[in-house]
């Protein structure tokens, strides 16, 4: 089976390198960072930290080089989805494409370019430390399911889940993947921007009672917006926040949004707090805290 990872940043690399350890999977990576692409082709894609893996991955920054694939795993930053799919959709004419991106609304973008879409949510995290090298900070599960409006066949969803799991990225196939996705979106929207605005790691955000309460306010607003759509969260985002704050999990992890702010890159706030605020507005659910955070992070971006 042929899998192409679209966007080989930290999360994309975790999937690509782990899948590449399997004999029956040929892994491609599409990424625009030429140095990273060259390093992967020269030395393999290396993971350090939570797992030591070197995967033989064919990397390219030229979408035309991608073969016809059985699966795509989209892991770009949310704001780059449209451009990445416009370039690579041809490789998935007969395949299924899954998103493991942060935020709300990625599936809709995928469905504009490909026919069979898989909704996905993933928890592992890390960061690129050098071209071709990714530090694996946090292990975790992935949940995938057919995207309601433009679904991939469920047996294909199961096939991808099986490969990821065998490769070392535990993945579950479910019929309705919205619950886990909203749980993570709410988790991310309640914690990432607090790190980004204050400069604190996840653990330090959580040990300040005043900030922890602010996170809970954001969680409560997010839960109300999910409930208004009939989405049943698979578990409480609050538990996830406290779990992630444990020293052995992600106490010292700088949220990706904080990494973005430090590097002065556009953040995913539009797809997190902006996504929740947008759905809230449509559904008549007030989200003042998400609106505040959204405006502040957009202000940070505007200051560069």
């Amino acid at each position, binding site marked *: 089976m042929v899998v192409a990872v679209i966007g080989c940043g930290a999360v994309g690399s975790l999937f690509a390198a782990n899948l590449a350890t399997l004999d029956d999977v040929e892994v491609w990576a599409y990424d625009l960072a030429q140095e990273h692409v060259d390093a992967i082709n020269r030395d393999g894609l290396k993971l350090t930290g939570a797992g030591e893996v070197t995967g033989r991955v064919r990397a390219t920054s030229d979408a035309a080089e991608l073969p016809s694939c059985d699966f795509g795993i989209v892991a770009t930053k949310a704001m780059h989805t449209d451009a990445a799919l416009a370039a690579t959709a041809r490789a998935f004419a007969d395949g299924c494409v899954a998103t493991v991106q942060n935020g709300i609304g990625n599936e809709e973008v995928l469905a504009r370019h490909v026919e069979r879409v898989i909704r996905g949510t993933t928890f592992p995290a890390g960061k690129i430390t050098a071209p071709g090298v990714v530090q694996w900070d946090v292990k975790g599960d992935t949940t995938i399911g057919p995207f309601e409006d433009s679904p991939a066949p469920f047996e294909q969803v199961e096939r991808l889940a099986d490969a990821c799991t065998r490769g070392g990225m535990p993945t579950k196939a479910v019929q309705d993947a919205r619950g886990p996705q909203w749980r993570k979106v709410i988790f991310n929207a309640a914690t990432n921007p607090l790190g980004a605005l204050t400069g604190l790691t996840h653990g330090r955000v959580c040990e300040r009672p005043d900030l922890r309460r602010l996170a809970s*306010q954001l969680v409560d607003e997010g839960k109300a917006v999910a409930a208004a759509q009939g989405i049943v969260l698979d578990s409480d985002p609050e538990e996830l926040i406290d779990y992630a704050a444990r020293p052995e999990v992600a106490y010292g992890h700088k949220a990706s949004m904080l990494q973005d702010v430090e590097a002065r890159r556009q953040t995913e706030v539009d797809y997190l707090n902006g996504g929740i605020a947008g759905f809230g507005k449509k559904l008549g659910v007030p989200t003042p805290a998400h609106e505040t955070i959204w405006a502040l992070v957009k202000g940070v971006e*505007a200051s560069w």
Partner: protein
Amino acid sequence: MARVCVAGAGVIGSLFAAHLARVAEVSALTRREEHAEALRTHGLRVSGRADFTARLAAATSPDDLEPPDLVILACKGTDLDAVAARLAGHWPGALVMTVQNGIGADEVVARHGDWRILAAVTFMSGTRHEDTHVQYVLDTATWIGPARGTTYADAQSVAELIVSSGLKAEAFEDLRPAQWSKLIFNATVNTVAALTGLPHDPHFAALERPDDLGHLVRGLMDEGKAVAGAAGVELGEDPWEMNVLATRRGSAHYPSMLEDVEAHRRTEIDMITGALVREAHRVGVPVPLHETMERLIKAKEDSWS
């Protein structure tokens, strides 16, 4: 000739000290000895809207200064308690004027002595280039009102002295309307600037897109106005109009809290947003947006300590 001591020679203190030295006998009380020495040796230069160098006395201890008639406490709000403590037991006859951002500065000072106290808010601004050189940027007024043991006439005489020195000042029977307008303005603009890194510029008045900052700015100001209303304070200028006007001036202003954050210094959050939130709790008005800003700024201070 009146004798004036300016305690704290940052931007605002330097502007007061240099101008007043043209019409009064002025001394500066500084924290650092090399600062006092530089002022004694080189005087204090003003550039920008004025251009002159003033001669003045300077020391790090009140014991080394002649007892003044007027003390202007011009240090940052974060240093006010410590500076007032150093004055405790000195100059019982002096009139003491606070010019800190926020509200409650006069109460902090009152804890350290029986001086007669005036409260002021200042809208002038400048840039400090070195210990002995300050650039005068915005020539807006300082508003003065009675606080403890003082009258409107006291405020008037200090305002006249300041005006005679070339700065703008005005006395008020009741300073609270002006103080509260500025408090709400600062609690909003300073915190938004400090969290976003944006100077006070047109983003603060933008209302077109749902994620534009103007919505948050207006929301924060509306909360502040509700607190003022419940506290029985009739506002002077409307903070939102102050905001719109300031962002139209063209030159982006860097609020002091943004400078503090960039320099990894402690901010005045406790005396500005903290004071507003405490007052809100006292009068029972919800201020969730200001509480959010206060939490985020305090956490940000934590990130470099």
